[in-house]
Structure formats: structure tokens, C-alpha cells
């Protein structure tokens, strides 16, 4: 039995593309989780990362925090949150935000800390205020690493957003869970292939953004 062939046939089957449970709807939900979680995570993690990176204080606590958050089992967190807020999109979104924070936080504080201290010193000597130093010197120089953190966060969430279906949260996991129970391997493979395709596409986009984020006048030492 050629599962790959049947999976591709599933993807191009017109029945899958119509109705409330259509592929387009599920992909839309999947991408909404991805962008929603990364944006919300960035709102929390990036200011925190800038603070830690600029003041160079609290690094040890931050490192432990990101390590600890990374170690949390996503399904467990999802169920725990769902037990208080109920089924739907809220528990998955909260879980994915928690998952997105570590790479964003790590990328930001590492990026800011990696800025040459001499450069920061020179800026301070020129009379720049701390906020000016942060936004005109540190963040532009750290931007490639911050974008790398975003890229990592996006990939993590895209891969794990399939869990949302466990608590009726929609997204591409719906196909995987319903196929899992019925041993419908082609459907499982098809849904997985779509998730992989999304991951590659988003990774490519962010790789490009990472190159564009490099400030003019700097060179990458090889």
C-alpha cells in the first residue's frame, strides 16, 4: 500500500476542500495560532529580553526560566489550562504562547548582549540616553538574532499547533486525531505533509527576513 500516493490523493480530493471542515479553514486556523502565539509571545518576551540584555542583570534567572519553559510538556500544559478555561481556542493559544516565549526571550537577550560593548560605550559617550542606545544601537545590531528567535518560535508553534484539536481547538490536528482513531494512515500522512510544508515555507520566509534584518554597514564574519 503506497501511503504517500494515497496521502497526495487525499490532499487533492475535492471533498476535503469544501464545507466547514475544509482544508483551507484548518490551514487558516493553524496559521492563526502560529502568528497569534508568536505575536503575543513577542509582546511578553522581547521587552523582557531587551531589559535583561541591556542591563546585563538577571541573566541567570532568565536562562533558567527559558530552560524550564522549554521543558514543559505541551500536551500536559494544554490539558491543565483547558481544565480551567474549557474547550475551544483559548487553552491552545495560551499553551502556544508559553511555547513561543523561550526562543523569543533567548534570541532577544542573547542578541542584545552580543552587541560589542565598545559600540555601546561609544554611544553612551556621545551622549545618547539609555532608550536611544537601546533602540538606535542595540536593537538594530541585535535584530538578526531577534528574528532568528522569532523563526525558531514560529517553527515550534507550527509543529505543535496540531495539539489544539485535543480540546476541540481546530487547526490541522483535527485530521490527525480523527484519522488516528480510525487507523486512516493516508489522512494522517497527508495532514502531516501539510504541516511540514507550512513549516518549510515559514522557515524560508524567516530565513529571508533574517538576512534583510542585518543592518547596513555591518558584515558577517565568516
Amino acid at each position: 500500500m503506497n501511503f504517500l500516493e494515497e496521502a497526495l490523493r487525499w490532499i487533492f480530493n475535492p471533498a476535503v476542500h469544501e464545507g466547514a471542515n475544509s482544508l483551507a479553514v484548518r490551514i487558516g486556523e493553524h496559521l492563526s495560532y502560529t502568528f497569534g502565539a508568536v505575536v503575543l509571545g513577542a509582546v511578553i518576551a522581547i521587552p523582557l529580553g531587551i531589559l535583561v540584555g541591556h542591563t546585563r542583570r538577571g541573566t541567570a534567572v532568565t536562562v533558567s526560566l527559558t530552560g524550564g519553559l522549554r521543558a514543559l510538556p505541551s500536551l500536559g500544559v494544554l490539558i491543565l489550562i483547558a481544565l480551567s478555561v474549557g474547550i475551544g481556542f483559548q487553552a491552545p493559544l495560551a499553551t502556544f504562547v508559553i511555547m513561543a516565549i523561550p526562543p523569543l526571550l533567548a534570541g532577544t537577550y542573547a542578541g542584545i548582549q552580543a552587541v560589542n560593548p565598545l559600540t555601546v560605550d561609544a554611544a553612551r559617550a556621545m551622549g545618547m540616553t539609555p532608550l536611544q542606545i537601546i533602540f538606535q544601537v542595540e536593537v538594530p545590531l541585535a535584530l538578526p538574532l531577534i528574528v532568528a528567535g522569532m523563526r525558531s518560535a514560529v517553527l515550534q508553534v507550527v509543529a505543535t499547533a496540531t495539539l489544539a484539536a485535543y480540546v476541540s481547538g481546530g487547526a490541522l490536528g483535527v485530521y490527525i486525531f480523527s484519522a488516528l482513531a480510525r487507523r486512516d494512515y493516508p489522512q494522517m500522512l497527508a495532514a502531516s505533509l501539510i504541516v511540514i510544508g507550512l513549516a518549510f515555507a515559514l522557515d524560508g520566509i524567516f530565513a529571508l527576513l533574517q538576512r534583510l534584518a542585518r543592518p547596513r554597514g555591518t558584515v558577517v564574519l565568516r
Partner: protein
Amino acid sequence: MSIKRILFVTAAVAAVGVALSGCTAADPTAAPSATAAGPAIVIGSQAFSENEIIGEIYAQALETAGYTVERKFNIGSREVYIPAIESGEVALLPEYTGGLLQYFDTATTAKSADDIYAALPALLEPSGLSVLDQSSASDEDSYNVTKEFSDANGVTSLSDLSALAIPLTVGGNSELETRPYGPAGLLSVYGVTVSFTPIEDYGGPVTVKALNDGVVQLADLYTSDPAIKKNGFVTLTDPENLMVANNVVALINTAAFPADAAGVINAVNAKLTTAGLVQINTESAAGDSPATIAAKWLKENLIG
């Protein structure tokens, strides 16, 4: 000789000594008692705690009787573990008569426990499977509503649902959507249209919360679930027998399961009751391990 060389030679000699001693030791997998025979009996279970605990009870009962047992619990749903037991990878698995019959014969009309049990052997034999004695303990799917819903809408039976004007949603695992007693069955037998919300925790706390919150009006919970009584849910009666009887029974791979071990399992099933299942599930929800719960059940219900 340098100290390094001495240490290396000592380590090498020690390693060889340990390896050689393994050749002379008695076979560690040989069962200690005279009643045991042959290779380990592989016991599987479905992926939920009650079934795992029944599997553990079987395992401990067999071990007490001198058999060697290998546990492969939490395999998954029927679509996953039936092929495993057909292939002989698993020799024994706690099953439920009704669900098992509907898996092998989707068109079956048998409803009572005895009719279902009688229909099983003929369907199982071509796959090399058979069943031992069934238990009186049963764990059936049931549709439940909250007490508030039942009082407000005058609903105590599945046949009351078709008269309701409000939209109804049922919550349950994805596989319920395609099962004979799922939404399709509700429509054809009771004339009620329900929409379906998949919640993948097998009637667990997420499903219970969804029912309590009113996000779903009906939830597929199991009759041995302590949550029904704990939350004051009303189990809707089933006059047309949409839900078939679902008694605990041991499913075996006829070739892989030693015939002389059947007596042990039959003795367990004879003592297992639905109340016993509720008790098992209550202890499991309190956090006791399957091994502890099984040991306690065996001590209270069987001698030795």
C-alpha cells in the same frame, strides 16, 4: 608494567569474568512454579486507566498462579490493538462484548449481553481469536446531560430529545463520529439531529467540564465513570437499545494464550462487577497506581 597497563588488564579481566559468569547462571526468565509453562503471556490493554487496571488485575492474577507475564498496556483504540492481538503480538486483552461485536459486524442487531456474547465466537474464529467467560461488569457508552438541562427541558431519556427545539451538540472522541451509536445512530434510531464536537480525552475531565459549561449539551461518558455521580449528571435512558450491552470479557489469541491459564482469568471475571469498576475508577482518579489498585482488588475479591 606501568600503572595504566595494570589497570587496563584488571578491567579487561573483570569484564571477561562478568561475561563468563552470565553463561553459567540459570535462565532468569524461567518461571519458578511447576504450573507455569513456556514463554511470557503478553497482556495488552486499551488506552484508558480502567482497562489498564483490569489488565493489571489479570497480570497479577496470572503471576500469582505462576505464569510469566509481559505487559504492553495503553496500546490505543480497537482499530489499533485488534491487529496486534490477531498477529499474536498480544495474547490477552480485556475487552468489552458490545464494542467488540460491533467492530467485527457493523450490521449486528444483537443488543442483550447474552445475544452479543453468543454471536462473538463465530466472528472471532477466522482471525484466530476467542473470548473467555464474560463478566457481569459492564462499561457502556452513555449519553449524559447536566441535571439543570434535564430539569429545564424535561429530558430523562434519549427519546425525549427529538421533541426539543434547541440545537444539540454531543461531545466525545473523534471515533464516536463514525461509530454506530454516534450521531448517525441517534438520527436513525431516535430521530434527533446532533452536531459533533470532538474532545479527545475519552470522557475525561475536559469533556466533563465542557458538559458542565454548557458548551456541549450531551456528552459520551462511560457507565463506570465516577464523574457521573460526582457531577450529578443524568444518564439518558436508552429504550431502543442504541447502546448495546458492553460487558467485560477477556479476548485472547487462541494460539498464543495457554489454555490452562483460562481458569485464572475466568475466576477474575466472575468476581468483577460494575460497582467494582466504579470503585477502581474512583481510586484511579484519586491517584493510586494501577498496580496498587489491582493488588487491592485481588486481595479483597479473590483468595491468593
